[in-house]
């Protein structure tokens, strides 16, 4: 439908999609700084690689789908998807892993479903899960916090590592990686150790979660709060995710603190905060009503805990997001607000 006559309202708030997307990127800056500080330059290279790939794939798909390329390329959505996915990948992941994941996210998860606004699943998480299932080895090779390795990883080293799999000094990737705190805990618990034993046994664990991870998560939290303040997102999904995760973790921790990690550990060590503020809040794939969003978030928190605790993967948040994406339309259908002048049903 094209409208020739400009209909009321005659004016508009000074906002647009690009501004919205850019704000999401701004909100990630503090986390990025912390990331680089604790884990080296790899993340920056990954993001650049991801953004270039995303924009290329986006342009290609827009061309093929005969959509206005410039208009959609500048909306910023592809850049956001690329950045979020890159931040979810191991910082020293080989270049092809990033390229493949991003290409899959943009081409399959986004454009094959109809492009911006029409994708039922979060593209970044689709890309992530595809990689996780297909390349488990590469996906779990997380770089260790710099403070825990002897080698001083320079910017060029990171580039070299990402593109060739080794650095000049002949050091292999293995020497620089370490299991993530969640991974480590899971392995320790399988060995019949208690939570307390596990946490004290390994330097990867910090005060609240993992070394470095704690700070990255706090900066992500700060960015997320800023997004709420700027009204880019609402509080409903983050509170749903973190609240439910905290509560369910607290319940099991209360029952048996030897075999279940504390709620604070659950929130601070994995990708819970990142997902709560930046992934699950993707409006396209989340419900739109306030109550619906809380329920959606709560579903993610609970599913993530279940997968983390009893599932095969140490971190379940990506699966949880995709699973809840599936029920988002149903949630929207059942949790509609009462309209003005209508009685409560």
């Amino acid at each position, binding site marked *: 439908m094209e409208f020739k006559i400009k209909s009321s309202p005659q004016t*508009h708030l000074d906002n647009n999609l690009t501004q919205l997307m850019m704000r999401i990127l701004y909100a990630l800056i503090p986390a990025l700084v912390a990331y680089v500080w604790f884990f080296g330059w790899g993340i920056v290279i990954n993001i650049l690689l991801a953004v270039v790939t995303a924009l290329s794939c986006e342009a290609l798909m827009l061309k093929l789908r005969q959509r206005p390329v410039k208009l959609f390329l500048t909306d910023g959505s592809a850049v956001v998807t690329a950045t979020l996915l890159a931040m979810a990948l191991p910082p020293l992941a080989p270049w092809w892993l990033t390229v493949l994941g991003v290409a899959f996210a943009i081409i399959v998860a986004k454009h094959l479903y109809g492009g911006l606004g029409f994708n039922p699943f979060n593209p970044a998480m689709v890309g992530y899960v595809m990689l996780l299932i297909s390349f488990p080895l590469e996906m779990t090779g997380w770089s260790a916090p710099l403070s825990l390795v002897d080698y001083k990883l320079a910017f060029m080293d990171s580039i070299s590592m990402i593109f060739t799999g080794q650095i000049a000094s002949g050091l292999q990737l293995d020497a620089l990686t370490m299991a993530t705190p969640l991974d480590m805990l899971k392995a320790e618990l399988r060995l019949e150790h208690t939570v307390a034993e596990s946490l004290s046994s390994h330097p990867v664990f910090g005060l609240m979660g993992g070394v470095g991870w704690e700070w990255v998560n706090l900066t992500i939290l700060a960015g997320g709060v800023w997004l709420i303040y700027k009204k880019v997102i609402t509080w409903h999904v983050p509170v749903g995710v973190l609240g439910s995760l905290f509560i369910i973790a607290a319940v099991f921790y209360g029952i048996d603190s030897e075999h279940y990690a504390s709620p604070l550990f659950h929130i601070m060590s994995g990708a819970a905060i990142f997902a709560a503020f930046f992934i699950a809040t993707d409006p*396209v794939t989340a419900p739109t009503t306030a109550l619906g969003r809380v329920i959606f978030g709560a579903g993610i928190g609970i599913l993530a805990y279940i997968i983390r605790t009893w599932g095969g993967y140490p971190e379940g948040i990506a699966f949880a997001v995709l699973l809840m994406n599936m029920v988002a339309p149903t949630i929207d259908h059942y949790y509609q607000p009462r309209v003005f002048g209508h009685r409560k049903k």
Partner: protein
Amino acid sequence: MINRILSRFHGGVHLPDRKSLTAGQPVRKAHLPDRLYLPLHQHIGASAEPVVAVGDSVLKGQMIAHACGYVSAPVHASSSGKVIAIEDHAIPHPSGASASCIVIETDGEDRWIERSGAEDYLNMDHSHLRNLIRNAGIVGLGGAGFPSFIKLNPGPDYQIDTLILNGAECEPFITCDDLLMRTHPEEIISGIKILRYALKAKHVVIAVEDNKPEAYQSLKGQLHNEDIEVVQVPTLYPVGGEKQLIQVITGKEVPHDGLPLNIGIVIQNVSTAAAVHRAVNEGTPLVSRYVTVTGGGVTQPRNLEVLFGTPVNELLEQCGGTNMAMSRLVMGGPMMGFELHQHNVPVIKTTNCILAATDHDLSPEQPMMPCIRCGSCADACPVSLLPQQLYWFARSKEFDKAQNINLFDCIECGCCSYVCPSHIPLVHYFRFSKTEIAAKEREQEKADQARARHEARQARLDREKAERAARLASKKAALAAKKARSDRASGGVSDDKKAAIKAAIERAKAKKAAKKQAGTEPEAEKNRAVSERKRAEMKAAIEQAKVKKMARKQAESGHERGVSEQKKAEMRAAIARAKAKKAEKKNDGI
């Protein structure tokens, strides 16, 4: 007086109000134009009908078109002069359409008709008072243009608890009500007293947005011992919307399928109250109003007191003319106003603002992007709708689904479109859907009527057939009876015997028939076959009459009659037919 606790409504948007452009400028009388173009339709309801002819001289305030039907309003000459045409002329309408206008060439004298105010409205009959207001052509001046007298007639079933005077003026740029409240508070208060008397309202509240402290003070200063509250309401668009203001003032929600009246509330604009005062106390009909001429597109933005029918371009000239920066000419405010495509349209009763907007005043159109379901629209919606969902259905033309999620509760305030980061013209989609649904309903109505007509015709045909059959049966029966009588009269042993046998057979048959038909009726057995037949005939006749009546009823009430009624009538006709047939058969037997 206890301070009123205000409620708030869902959503709404804070808008840059831009009222300072005109709020500080005194109101000026607009010049008398050479020609006045007075549309016959300046209100909600039926168009007025001209009562003057081309060539007639008219005086200012003379009724030149009378109200046509209940929901309608008369039109008065806004200055003296001569009617030179009654023809189509561009009118202020979003479609840019033309409509019938009475064109008056003014004589420059601006001579009034004889006016006299009511001596004492407090002793006036309520219906007389309403008629005064009606004949003065007063309609809601806030923008809707609903004939005001109708709202003053709640009927015996409703007690008016609160009369609310809407002085919120929540649209940006517009200051005409503000100026009226500041310059003529006495007229407003006087009008309010009349309205209060007409409605027997227990409480009266004047609501003013808190960005108009001068208007608030001015009204307060005018009040002495009157039991009238003046309330400052928070500036939040659309607080001036009828339902929103009622919610803020009283905390009550107008039912979605009802009127403010249903919850004991009547709401009128402050300018309407002033007009009521002039009509009742001075005998002055509605011929002019304050109009805000504003925006960066005019050199000297200000409020003008404008005679209805004055072309917009003349007003722009009187405000220093338009400049190159003007990109759009809008009638009404930026949120609910519409763009004018011709500058010669006249000011009408509902015109509150002429906005000569630059791109700085009103943001230029941006390309529409896909909906990302961010929900900003739902957050902004003052009636808690889900605009993104409505949009989805409107786009895919699933209008029934849109209706299911309460499309018709949309007040078209524009908040959703205003905040949409994808710049989707949501309100336009909703208007489009509403008109599509209305069109479909009209079609459906037509189809229903056609079906009812067809079914009524079928019933008529069936009835006629039954009637014919009954007539034939009665004729045959009469013949047979005659024959039987003549046979008996002619005598003869063989004949007697024959007659006896026949009678016996008839009796037996009658017995059988009576048993079959009436079941328990004992006298049927005793009766002769002839009377049996007669009864059957009578029954058939009664049924016919019933069917006839039904058909007439159906024809009268058209499609409203349900199919079941139709079916019942058909069934009755069928029973009548069957009975007549039976009677016929019996007679054949005789």
